[in-house]
């Protein structure tokens, strides 16, 4: 059988993304503009191709996700801005779904875009949209099923948007660094500053984003995670906004030297040879060179270069790169080192497929306090993450199962958890439980007895940490 010729649409994410593009360029250009027509044609071709095997195709917005014929389309870094845009455009119109029921034409889709864009000026956009597309037989619409105005939901949306924004920015920076093009740090600064603003309000929520390790691209997520964890530690130290911004960017760029490491080594799935390790160990020096050759030299780039160089130097002077003199890493580097090691240990990397559970990672750091990491900063870090960091899968004395959702600085051993399995071993509706709650007799209602490694069970933390609010 010959492959159908589908040059553009590769997958569900791509399809939703294309729809967003149609509306975006429709806002800028006339509907008959060649740019719009080209995009419409590609979209129509893809839809029609799908309709060859499926009777209908529904693109639906439910909560914060798009669904195609009830299968959720996963939120992806490369599409996040367009997804976000499309979500917002749907909501503005009270639109919940668009259904294609039969082969559509370019004109159908053009007319739809036209009405879609113009209906916003009416008092009831959805009603206007519905009236406007009455003559288009192949497209029907549905209303938005849930009210989306809830404050927490918005916060979560902003949080996720900021997180993905940061990843997208890091990808752009890494791409430029690899191509040895000049990098404008102010764009990264904007992202980091937004992270800081958000963390000043919702630190725990942002930290929870770092606990979700099921993303595809370790390096990009790792850089953002290290930035978030470093910022959280910096906040605990009382650094001001300007210095937090410097720290956030330095942490963001700590691994930038990896762009100089050959992909075949970075992506190697089997253990490294000695020679490959030696190459990997070059990334701190490469980081310095990358930063200094692609960025304007200023206070921020200098601090970033220092952190890039020092983040694998141990507290006792061991580690790499080998230095000729007595070396004491600076404060930012010591902060980033802890964040880096914690996130690396708890993540599945290409060359280390078995991540440690958060509390095991803490245990390893504690064992190496004073040798590999700064013992004082580590104390503060543990106080910040709690002894059961966010994302830890815990077993309670009530024989219930939960995931740590938020730390409790006053009672580190009693965080807030998302309860996921009841005492009968049955999955329950997700609910938040504060483990510092007591019964009338003064005893605690629930206490953590054991921890489990969520990675072992491939539990999708995002399902619990992000959705626990709704």
């Amino acid at each position, binding site marked *: 059988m010959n492959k159908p010729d589908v040059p553009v649409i590769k997958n569900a994410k791509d399809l939703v993304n294309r729809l967003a593009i149609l509306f*975006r360029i429709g806002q800028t250009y006339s509907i008959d503009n060649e740019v719009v027509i080209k995009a419409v044609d590609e979209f129509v071709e893809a839809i029609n191709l799908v309709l060859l095997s499926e009777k209908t*195709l529904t693109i639906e917005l439910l909560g914060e996700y798009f669904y195609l014929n009830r299968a959720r389309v996963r939120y992806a870094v490369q599409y996040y*801005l367009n997804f976000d845009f499309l979500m917002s455009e749907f909501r503005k119109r009270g639109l919940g779904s668009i259904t294609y029921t039969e082969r559509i034409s370019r004109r159908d889709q053009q007319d739809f875009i036209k009405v879609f864009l113009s209906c916003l000026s009416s008092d009831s956009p959805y009603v206007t949209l519905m009236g406007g597309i009455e003559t288009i037989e192949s497209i029907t619409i549905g209303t938005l099923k849930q009210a989306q105005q809830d404050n927490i939901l918005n916060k979560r949306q902003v949080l996720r948007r900021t997180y993905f924004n940061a990843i*997208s920015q890091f990808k752009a920076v890494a791409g430029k660094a690899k191509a040895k093009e000049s990098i404008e740090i*102010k764009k990264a600064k904007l992202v980091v500053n937004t992270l800081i603003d958000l963390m000043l309000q919702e630190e725990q929520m942002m930290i929870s984003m770092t606990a979700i390790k099921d993303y595809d691209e370790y390096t990009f997520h790792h850089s953002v995670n290290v930035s978030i964890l470093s910022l959280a530690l910096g906040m605990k130290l009382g650094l001001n906004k300007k210095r937090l911004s410097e720290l956030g960017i330095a942490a963001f760029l700590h691994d930038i030297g990896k762009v100089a490491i050959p992909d075949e080594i970075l992506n190697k799935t089997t253990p490294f040879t000695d020679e490959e390790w030696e190459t990997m160990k070059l990334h701190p020096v490469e980081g310095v060179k990358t930063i200094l050759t692609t960025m304007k*030299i200023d206070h921020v780039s200098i601090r970033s270069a220092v952190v890039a160089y020092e983040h694998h130097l141990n507290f006792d002077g061991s580690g790499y790169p080998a230095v000729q003199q007595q070396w004491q890493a*600076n404060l930012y580097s010591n902060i980033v080192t802890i964040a880096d090691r914690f996130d690396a240990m708890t993540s599945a990397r290409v060359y280390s497929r078995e991540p440690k559970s958060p*509390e095991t990672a803490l245990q390893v750091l504690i064992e190496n306090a004073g040798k590999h990491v700064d013992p004082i900063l580590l104390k503060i870090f543990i106080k910040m993450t709690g002894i059961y960091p966010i994302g830890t899968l815990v077993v309670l004395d009530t024989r219930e199962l939960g995931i740590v959702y938020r730390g409790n600085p006053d009672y580190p051993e009693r965080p807030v958890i998302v309860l996921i399995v009841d005492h009968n071993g049955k999955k329950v509706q997700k609910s938040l439980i504060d483990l510092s709650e007591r019964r009338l007799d003064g005893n605690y209602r629930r206490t953590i007895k054991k921890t489990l490694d969520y990675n072992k069970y491939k*539990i999708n933390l995002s399902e619990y940490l992000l959705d626990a609010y709704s």
Partner: protein
Amino acid sequence: MQWSTTFLWEKGMDDSRITTARTFIKAALKAKKTLHIYPSNNILYRNAIDETFSIAQEYLSSYGLLVLRITPSEMFVDSEQVYQSSGKMDNLALFFFKEGIRELTFKEGLPKNELEEFLKLTGTDFDREDSNSDFISSVWEKGLENIKFTIDEIAFLEGDAVPGGPGSGLEGGEAGEAMKAGEAMKAAESQIGEGVGTGALFLSRIKAQGDISTEDVEDVICLTDEREDGKLLTAYEDAVNKEEVSPVAVKELTPEERGFIVAEIAKDSSESNGRLVEILIEILATSGDSAEAGVIAKSFEDLIMHSLRANDLRSVLMALRGVREIVPEGHHDRRGISDIQENADTIVDFCDSRAVIEQLGRMMDSTKEISEEDLTEYARLLGKGAVQLFMSLLENLQSISARRMANNVLIHIGKDNMEALVKRLKDPTWYVVRNVIYVLRNIGDNAVLDDILKMSRHGHPRVRLEVVKALTNFKSVKALQALKDFFDDSDSTVRLSAIAGIGSVVKESSGARLFTRDAILAKVKEKGFEERDFKEKKSFFETLALVSDGEVDEYMIGVLKKKTLFSSRKSIESRSCAAYYLGLAGSREALPLLEKLGNTSDHLLREHVAAALQRIKHE
């Protein structure tokens, strides 16, 4: 009709709102320029702030919020245009737009200082080489509570070529900064990456196409509830059987640890440049190839310039010191040295380049405190060539303190290259010559006396004055003889300095007494000497008193006695000078005459006689 009255009233209010918004932007634009030009204590500066603030208050107190929608050439309040400029210079809308700002909001309660900070930032040149920040970051760092902006993330994050995007207010086909046809598509498409997954809908099709593996597909599809449940239940079963583990302990910081971390934070902010210097030296010293060493050398150069711009001489010094350890001292032949050394040598060369020295000059001219010790060490590390460089620097320095500092450095390093210093005595600029003489004087090497003497006839009096000071310092007979030649200099300050200089030499060198006595005596006996200024004449007599003897005393008594019928002013001055000399010389022989003149009617003479009497009697 009620409705129309309401409508008209609202319309009237709207008109006033738009007018006030326009006035505010006009005032802000004016203030932006004024704040850039004048210091904050200037009346024009204060007026600009006051005026803008008063208009802002007028608007905000009536309408609560001022929300400006920004396009590259316009600003709108709602749909009303309140600002328009198609230019690229001084276009406030374009300034904000290029920063990615699409909406700017001023809130009620905006304090004056916040508005001032904001306006100052709009006038700041963030494109300057030494700028460490940008507009958005600076506003953010200031934490302005009542001024907020919305940024078009797509325009801002997607790259420099995409000023448009949803909500940007740009229409297709708009000229100038607007997005060109096709770029919108490109911008939107830049969201598209190489996705590998699909929804369940496409699963069968993709499998058939063989584009991606099942594993990839599963990775991106939302897990079904059944699968998730299965995993949870496995986890639950494991949990029941798992042994309990004790959690890690959370320990509080001790007071010592708190103190240590506070000190670390305080120390940390100032050490980055120096730390990067250490890092670059480490990398340079171990660099594997010439390309790497070259990159590091270039980075060093950038860092040196950055540090100088930040008045951080210490880091530059660290760099030079570190690199000097890599480069063999005094080598000039590059043959046979390694890539590392060659690049280290390049850095040393850069340190005495014109660009660096000029920047060093700007730093010295700034008001920031610089350690003279560091500057001297820097110069020393540059080697012999530093004298020449610092001489050039001296030519261009603006402030007195900077010139003094450069001179002091030259005094320290000049000995190593006297030749270069002497050469600059021929400089056409008078103050360069004067500075060279100053430096030579302080170095105090008699070998250059002849070179200095050649400047005795220099056209500028301040150069000659410096020569006199130098000759005084050298204290040799030759210098003394040369000083005598300045008795008739055309400039009185030079003459005074010469006679004072001779006095200072005589005090320390008894061998010069006779020469001095004869030279001064001859001068005061000259016909025209009487015509000189009284203060100058006195200084000659004062020095003469240092080498007094009976012969001179006798001459002075003669001058004092010389009474004429119609005493001229000059004659009185000469007699007063003689009395002054006799007093200083302690001439007891002159006592009877002095006592006799004690009640003389001339005030000047009486005063000097009285002083002389007192001095002799109390000696």
